[in-house]
């Protein structure tokens, strides 16, 4: 067991590292990137012409003035943060603050400015005094470059995490509690009216994208209900900023428990519905398969009561594949539902990812990505261990 775990952890570390390198490379190797975007934004905002100093500042903020391999190691393990002990390598060039420019004159008279060489190099000594993370390997995700202007990414995540945790936690719990009985009952009463209705709803629920659901929910419960003078639900955000009045319920104070609860209902409902649709189908299919197996017939032939046949003999077996789905739950709990959070403007981690990506806050994007990969890997490990608990045929090897 210890050996197995050790082997798994090494594997997991390697996979996470590969993912980190791929994602980091993807973000930074593509030409253009954050600096162009930022400069374009400024220009659009009607600010003054961008000066050389502006460019330098932005480059420094994104550490674009440090060569990619060093940028990556600084992000990964917080090194190099200055000259080596004893001042060795203080003058080693590890980046370039201002690229050199060369004018190319083509034979046809065209002139083009090409970046070539380096005008102002960055050395190890220059790194001293710069903010640097301890490295994500040691749990420091660095600073938020855009959204919080230099404050740690961790702060940002911690402000968003509670919202995601309670939204996802509630909906996942509700989904399991509802989906499993529905799936089981559908399978036991196969081809009954209940089964027919549930499978149709689940089919539609599972084939539709979540944002379409979200928007329909807002249309129905917020817009139409409000226009019709019925009690309605607030359409977005986790906490209101102004008091509002709902027919039959009365005035809801912004920030009150009722306010939070009402705003929680729709995103939670949509997520729960989507999960139920998928999971009840899964449980039904797996249950049907198990119900047709020999040992279920044996149990009946022994005179086991039908209820016990289903709840003891069949359910236990049919939930074995369900364990696989649990691998994703850990990730879902942390990273939330990207699309649903966005539709309902829910200030969770999923929404944070979209915002960070939209604003090129790469440290935030990378942090969330890495956390996701690691949690998924841990989820898979837990699943594999759980498998051996629920299915005696499986051994860890």
């Amino acid at each position, binding site marked *: 067991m210890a050996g197995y775990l050790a082997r798994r952890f090494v594997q997991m570390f390697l996979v996470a590292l590969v993912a980190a390198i791929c994602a980091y490379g993807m973000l930074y190797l593509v030409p253009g990137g954050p600096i162009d975007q930022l400069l374009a934004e400024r220009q659009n905002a009607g600010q003054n012409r961008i000066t050389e100093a502006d460019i330098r500042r932005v480059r420094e903020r994104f550490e674009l003035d440090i060569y990619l391999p060093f940028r990556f190691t600084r992000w990964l393990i917080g090194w190099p943060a200055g000259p080596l002990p004893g001042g060795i390598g203080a003058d080693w060039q590890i980046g370039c603050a201002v690229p050199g420019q060369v004018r190319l004159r083509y034979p046809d008279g065209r002139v083009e400015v090409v970046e070539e060489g380096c005008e102002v190099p960055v050395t190890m000594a220059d790194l001293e005094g710069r903010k640097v993370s301890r490295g994500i390997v040691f749990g420091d995700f660095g600073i938020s470059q855009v959204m919080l202007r230099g404050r740690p990414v961790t702060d940002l995540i911690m402000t968003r995490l509670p919202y995601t945790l309670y939204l996802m936690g509630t909906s996942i719990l509700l989904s399991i509690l509802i989906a499993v009985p529905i799936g089981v009952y559908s399978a036991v009463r196969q081809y009954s009216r209940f089964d027919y209705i549930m499978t149709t709803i689940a089919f539609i629920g*599972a084939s539709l*994208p979540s944002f379409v659901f979200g928007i329909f929910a807002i249309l129905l419960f917020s817009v139409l209900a409000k226009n019709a003078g019925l009690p309605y639900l607030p359409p977005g955000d986790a906490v209101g900023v102004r008091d509002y009045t709902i027919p039959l319920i009365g005035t809801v104070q912004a920030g009150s428990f009722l306010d939070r609860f009402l705003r929680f209902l729709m995103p939670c409902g949509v997520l729960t519905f989507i999960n139920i649709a998928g999971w009840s189908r899964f449980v039904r299919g797996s249950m049907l398969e198990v119900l047709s197996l020999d040992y279920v017939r044996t149990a009946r032939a022994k005179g086991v009561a039908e209820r016990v046949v289903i709840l003891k003999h069949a359910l236990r077996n049919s939930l074995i594949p369900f364990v696989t789905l649990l691998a994703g739950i850990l990730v879902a709990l942390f*990273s939330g539902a990207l699309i649903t959070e966005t539709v309902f403007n829910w200030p969770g981690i999923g929404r944070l990812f979209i915002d960070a990506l939209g604003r090129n806050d790469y440290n935030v994007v990378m942090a969330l990505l890495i956390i996701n*990969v690691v949690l998924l890997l841990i989820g898979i490990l837990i699943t594999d261990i759980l498998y051996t608990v629920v299915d005696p045929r499986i051994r860890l090897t």
Partner: protein
Amino acid sequence: MATSTTAVPLEEAAPRRSEGQWAIVFRRFRRHRLAMFCVGLLTALLLLSAAAPLIAPYERDAPNLTGRFLTPMGRDADGGLHILGTDHLGRDYATRLLYASRVSLGTAFTATLIASTIGIILGMLAGYFGGWVDMAISRFLEIVATFPTLLLLLILSSILVQNINAVPLPAWGASFLAFLFAVSEREARIIFAVILVLAFFGWTGTARLMRGMVLSVRENVYIESARALGASNVRILFRHVFPNALPPMIVDFTLGVNGTLVAESALSFLGFGIQDPTPTWGNMLGYAQSYMFQYPWMPLIPAMPILIASIAINYIGDGLRDALDPRQRG
């Protein structure tokens, strides 16, 4: 018991599917009423999107600031009728929806086609050759499976869409896609970027399925006998393995199209996919969301085709599964 114990003669399990068998499949599929109806719906959508440039009543991007947010059947200041109304820039909704269908459905089909092709080839190689080929492909599959797909999809898409010059597409490809989607070449590059991203993340399931199919088919006796008769690897792959693996692949492809369609809509909805002015169902819905409180009908118009296409494709997939492999019911 008695119903299912009829032994299958060896000839029936042989790879060559005679025309008669496809006729049986077709007959079985036709019995699935709902699936037939869905085929009709999807065909109608495809025909409409194919004919978009011909039947669209207005110019796709022509703004009309005097006629913004017109209700369906509303008329603008010049008396022009807008069957589905206009958007926030006064562009004709019906026109944009037609073009959007072309882009959305086209993207979904193209991306799935690419993804399936990659998946089928890699899965076949892994399953058939085994050994280190299988090792390499399977390991890669495992690693990709641990990636948070949606996040990477968003990252890659946002990068590529911001830097369309980085999209590896030759000029002839761009003009072909521009023709296919009825868009400009610049737009075609963005669409291609999104197709690439979707295809890149869409092939793993197919590869895994194909690998499993090949492994099980390979175990069968007739491959042994084909090899004994001196058939070459390639010949065995295409004459024996492929036809047997085809039925589940068709189902996989159908459901894959829905997956890609939803993924593209989500990307575009969130603003990281195909960008305005190129219309897609997803980005039209994204814009409509901002105005839904004043104009509640707006999101319904692009949401409907997503709904219809998505459910229709899934029902078709379901019907196909029943028709192609009646044992896998449930």
